[in-house]
């Protein structure tokens, strides 16, 4: 009889210890979470800012780089040849198949984020005299990625096409708007 009582006592003690440990564990985890959360982007960082760009001074064939959320955005006023080259591509041959029409709102204006999808360098091609790679688009000097006139990856180690604004943030549509014929608002 004493054995049974003692055993019951031990089981209750084990149960209490187990419960205490479980509660302690939950408490510790619940305490750690807010601290980790402070490292996530804060509300002011998340509040999207908007950059407005006046497109009138950009001639056909010219390209402009603007800053948006700390990143460079390439705005290219494409020539008819560049547009045709972008559209006449067999999409199934692309590393990331994407039609040119899915990457622009107006064909003569390409608005893409100027950050190489390999490891984050800024590709060349914005300034006159830059090496644009053999597709006439952009060329990343860090590891040799080559993009075409739609900003799609054609050669080199980059896995994806140059991002549209908002694409990384998973916005449902590209985050830029033509507020008039000559002004685009990014973000």
């Amino acid at each position, binding site marked *: 009889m004493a054995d049974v009582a003692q055993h019951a006592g031990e089981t209750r003690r084990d149960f209490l210890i187990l419960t*205490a440990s479980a509660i*302690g564990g939950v408490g510790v985890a619940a305490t750690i979470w*807010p*601290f980790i*959360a*402070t*490292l*996530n982007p*804060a*509300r*002011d*960082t998340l509040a999207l800012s908007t950059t407005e760009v006046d497109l009138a001074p950009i001639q056909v064939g010219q390209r402009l780089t603007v800053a948006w959320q700390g990143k460079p955005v390439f705005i290219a006023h494409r020539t008819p040849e560049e547009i045709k080259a972008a559209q006449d591509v067999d999409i199934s041959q692309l590393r990331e198949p994407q039609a040119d029409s899915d990457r622009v709102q107006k064909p003569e204006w390409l608005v893409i984020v100027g950050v190489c999808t390999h490891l984050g360098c800024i590709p060349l091609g914005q300034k006159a005299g830059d090496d644009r790679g053999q597709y006439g688009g952009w060329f990343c000097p860090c590891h040799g990625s080559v993009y075409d006139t739609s900003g799609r990856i054609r050669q080199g180690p980059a896995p994806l096409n140059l991002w549209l604004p908002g694409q990384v943030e998973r916005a449902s549509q590209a985050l830029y708007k033509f507020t008039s014929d000559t002004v685009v608002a990014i973000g």
Partner: protein
Amino acid sequence: MADTRPGAMSRIIRWIDYRLPFVAALNHELNEYPTPRNLTYWWNFGSLSGIVLVVMIVTGIFLAMQYTPSSEAAFDSVERIMRDVNYGWLVRYAHSSGASMFFAIVYIHLFRGLYYGSYKEPRQFLWILGVVILILMIATAFMGYVLPWGQMSYWAATVITNLFSAIPLIGQSIVTFLWGGFTVGDPTLHRFYALHYLLPFIIIAVVGLHLIALHRFGSNNPLGIDAKGPQDTIPFHPYYTIKDLFGLAVFLLIYAFFVFYAPNSLLSPDNYIPANPMQTPNHIVPEWYLLPYYAILRAVPNKLLGVIMAFGSLFILFFVPWLDRSPVRSARFRPVYKWVFWLLVIDVVALGWVGANPPEGIVVTVGQIATFYYFLHMLILLPLVGKLERPRLLPSGIGTAVLGGGARLGAAGSPMAKP
């Protein structure tokens, strides 16, 4: 037959332990460590203060990731933490309330030591290390309070650094050196930030020494008589680990109440006004845990003497093991000292009240009496009461006392010292 083969985990531990012998030592110090069996809840406050130290460091580091230590940006960066950083308000309030909790716990821990004679032979150095920790805490807290760069931050920094100008001849040069300029300003803020980040880690080191000193002779106990063998002690784990955990839960309840429901109750509203070097607040008041020293400072009409006595009230704690002449440790057996102790508590609380109020009318009188009494206690009462009082008969042992055994005078008996 139970499987006695060591598992993979314990094999790894033994591999490390053979090369870096810490596991066995830790096991002895934390698990088996013989602790007097009669400790009361007043003994929870040591481990509790260690935990709060860790809380302060963790919250402080996460705040430091978001804070900007410049006079233009500091106040705004704190507001950004409160408003825009996810759970920033929680970390900030945990840090500010935690400072108050830390001092409350350490003061209780200190007074526990005063009551039970924990500072007496052979634990004098343990006590000294404790006072060192307290001084480091005060320095850390003072500098931390400057960082939000509110009105009280700026003016408390100005007043306290100006104290050093009381030093004859070189005082003002020292103050300019401390400021890094002609007033409290950016250089001051920058160096306070760097030092505020540094000192807690020095506190950790001193806490480590404090624990080593503690484990040399083991904990004191409410009877103040030495533990003489296994009949008087129990292993630290599981008895005191679970008791400390329970005490921690109760503490967290009080802490959480302050953080979530009364975070500004212990703070001055003036610190929500950005620092203005051209305008002094009506009442400059330090945080509650510094009020007694502030009261002593103001009670003395002479500037230099006031500074000396304010710092002196803190530094005199170093000498308590030698000021108290009683051969008996615990106040349980010292009927006169018991009253003297509680009078000291009332005196310190009164000093706090004095420090909180503008120095007018009765506040001044009470401040002077309380200051006088504090030093009377330390310099006169401690030695006299210790020498002249007739203590009650001590029990012969902790184990027998628990079981209601006989009595014997004196605190003799070999301590549970490590060879």
